[in-house]
């Protein structure tokens, strides 16, 4: 009998750092954490804290009318920093619209992420610079893209031996959530990736809610058990444990890179805030449940570990808070200063080359815009 999802929450979960901040050893994954020294641990904490502060600032900007929408990630920092730090520069990332922490690990400036949410750009950054794809607003639409990209990687690396693949090979990480897991594209993508041994790591952050729909409604079995149906290894990891996430993602990338095909990772986490700034979680979940998850906060457990092992002092946290505030102020300043492109600019982005119908419509638009009496005073907006 398959286990219920609730039961499975406590079973088969890869965990290195417990919610109490104790580090456990693991027969397989310890080998993937050998290089993790004290500096790295502090950096992980710093990454997560910076991400959380950025998230907080962006939420405030939305409340102040400066962003159309914001997608908070509070609670999912470990899943994102751990997996993002496991990738290599040559790997290509397909995010959803919530991977602000992964973006940090790919050196995408936080400010740039706000262009999209400010409604002045369809993207905001050049995906080729950091191998971090544009945010995909359509649920699961990025998953077939990831499979296709990975199949192309296979074609490019055709004939490479194992050593060369391990050293120079590229892999793809496809991010998605428990809600997206029930989209048709998720299924299609996984079928293709497995049929063609495409080097994709399917990284699912199961944050327990598809907007307002609880996970129990999404699936009767743990998502990880679906991996077997496609013929790929599945790993269930504590998504609030940055070390465990780092280790399993490294293993998965190694597996994919070596030509053995895709891997499915279910990172069990919890969205502490709203799905987006447009919904109110108190309308669809109980505060008891939120209280249950609060002590499992990824920042809390790493802080406990760092303090108990005397790896940090109060000054570390004070300095970090100050740096984070400065970062937030910079982000705010940058976002306010972004030039707003004229709507006419959008016409350039419909087709790669000039298209007569679009040109015609652009001419109409310009003439229409020019027809306002206050146009001269307004200038080109």
């Amino acid at each position, binding site marked *: 009998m398959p286990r219920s999802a609730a039961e499975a929450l406590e079973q088969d979960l890869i965990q290195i750092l417990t919610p109490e901040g104790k580090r456990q050893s693991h027969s397989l994954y310890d080998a993937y954490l050998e290089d993790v020294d004290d500096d790295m641990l502090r950096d992980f904490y710093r990454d997560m804290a910076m991400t959380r502060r950025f998230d907080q600032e962006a939420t405030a900007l939305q409340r102040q009318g400066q962003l159309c929408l914001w997608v908070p990630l509070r609670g999912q920092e470990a899943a994102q920093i751990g997996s993002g730090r496991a990738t290599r520069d040559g790997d290509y990332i397909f995010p959803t619209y919530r991977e602000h922490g992964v973006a940090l690990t790919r050196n995408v400036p936080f400010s740039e992420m706000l262009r999209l949410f400010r409604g002045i750009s369809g993207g905001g950054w050049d995906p080729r610079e950091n191998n971090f794809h544009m945010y995909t607003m359509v649920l699961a639409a990025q998953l077939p893209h990831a499979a296709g990209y990975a199949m192309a990687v296979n074609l490019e690396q055709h004939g490479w031996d194992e050593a060369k693949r391990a050293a120079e090979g590229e892999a793809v990480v496809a991010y998605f959530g428990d809600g997206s897991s029930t989209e048709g594209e998720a299924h299609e993508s996984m079928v293709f990736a497995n049929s063609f041994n495409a080097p994709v790591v399917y990284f699912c952050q199961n944050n327990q809610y598809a907007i307002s729909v609880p996970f129990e409604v999404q699936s009767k079995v743990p998502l990880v058990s679906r991996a077997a149906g496609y013929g790929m290894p599945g790993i269930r990891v504590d998504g609030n444990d940055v070390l465990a996430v780092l280790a399993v993602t490294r293993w998965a990338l190694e597996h994919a890179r070596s030509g053995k095909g895709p891997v499915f990772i279910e990172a069990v986490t919890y969205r502490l805030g709203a799905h987006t700034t447009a919904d*109110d979680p108190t309308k669809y979940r109980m505060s008891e449940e939120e209280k249950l998850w609060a002590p499992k906060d990824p920042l809390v457990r790493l802080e406990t570990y760092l303090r108990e092992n005397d790896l940090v002092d109060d000054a570390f946290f004070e300095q970090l808070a100050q740096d984070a505030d400065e970062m937030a102020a910079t982000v705010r300043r940058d976002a306010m200063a972004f030039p707003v492109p004229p709507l006419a600019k959008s016409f350039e982005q419909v087709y790669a080359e000039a298209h007569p119908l679009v040109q015609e419509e652009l001419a109409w638009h310009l003439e229409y815009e020019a027809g306002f009496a206050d146009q001269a005073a307004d200038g080109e907006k």
Partner: protein
Amino acid sequence: MTTFNLPDVGEGLTEADVASWKVSVGDTVEVNQIFVEIETAKSLVELPSPYAGVVTELHAAEGETVQVDEPLISINEDGEAPVPTGVPEPNEALSTAAPVASEEPGPLVGSGPTADSATRRARVNRPEPSATGARTASVRASGTPAALADQISRRAQGFSQVVAREVDRRKPAVANFVDRVLAKPPVRRLAKELGIDINDVVGTGSQGEVTREDVNSYQAQREAEHAAAPTYWRPGTGAPETRIERIPVRGVRKATAKAMVDSAFTAPHVSIFVDVDATRTMEYVARLKKSRDFEGIKVSPLLVLAKAVIWAAARNPSVNASWVPGPNGDEIHQKHFMNLGIAAATPRGLLVPNIKDAQDLSMKELAIALNELAATARAGKTRPEDMRDGTLSITNIGVLGIDIGTPIINPGEVAIVAFGTIKQKPWVVDGQVVPRWITTLGGSFDHRVVDGDLSARFMADVASIMQEPAMLLD
């Protein structure tokens, strides 16, 4: 001093209630300090202050509803000269201070000037933008530049909510752009099941589409009319007046009456009738309906008749004229253009809007023009200029199952063609009785201008096209 207006904190919210203030006038606030809790249609939301400074005014009491983009709080920013607190600012100062005083740009999203100005931006007096280059038939038919501009904006709405909101306020754009009535499939099915031609229903949806409610209310109206029939006759027991309903003659009814009297008593009418085997017309219409080129365009035998009338008028031009009394004697003005009037029953009464320069239209363009004319009339949106300068009219009385009647000429014109119902009747072809699609055409002519033989020739020409539409190709 800076005033912070209520932003749209959800997606497309228009207002929020102030749940509780977290600050008072005179308090110092920091950037991102929570200063108020508001309740929107979606959630309770805490708003962080975008400015640091001293609170000078709270613009709404707790429990009050504030519209998006209305002032919420005023803050004297750090470094600014203090203003007396608690003293209401003059309204002018409020509205102008906000965008100027702040160093930061005003809120962009959901509250910018483009999205939320209460009135439309004024337009300079300039000719309507003109289209250049080839257009598709549907674009050509869509009419106004504003409709196209709306369409463009609508397509671009993915780029920002600002645009989407602006477009929402305008009149339906998509409806103008599609050559058939918009409705969801279940609504179409409902109309079909009720035996309602969905084209007859006026759509009230946000895109001009026919909604389920529209169909239901159309049906309700139909039922109400029919249901009233049994109680229509009233017993002769009370005062005689109670059995007579007095309906004031106003508006269209008044104009119609005057026009008909003018016409009937100034133009000596001569009417003639002809039965026509319209089987070929029916076949032709069926082919057009199936053709890819006419996809989405309503095609009916009226289209062929309209084309036939235009064709026949060119061969018999005296029917496309008017009788003009003048100081130096009367004149006949023969028109070398056809503004083809189509009599239409509308909620406002009988109207005869016309299709300007109908002689220049291809079959497809004419079909689109007929559709538009009918839709506009049904929606009660026919403009006076649409009814001016007609040169010849058609009245389609067949839609109600009537064989034919004597039409009365539209004033200012000298001919009108009435189109009876088309139904299968036994018909003699080559000595055999066979079922054919038969209709009757009637014509009334101003005998001052059009003599009997001319009117007969004109009607015979129209009939010949109905009998064999292929002759239009000659």
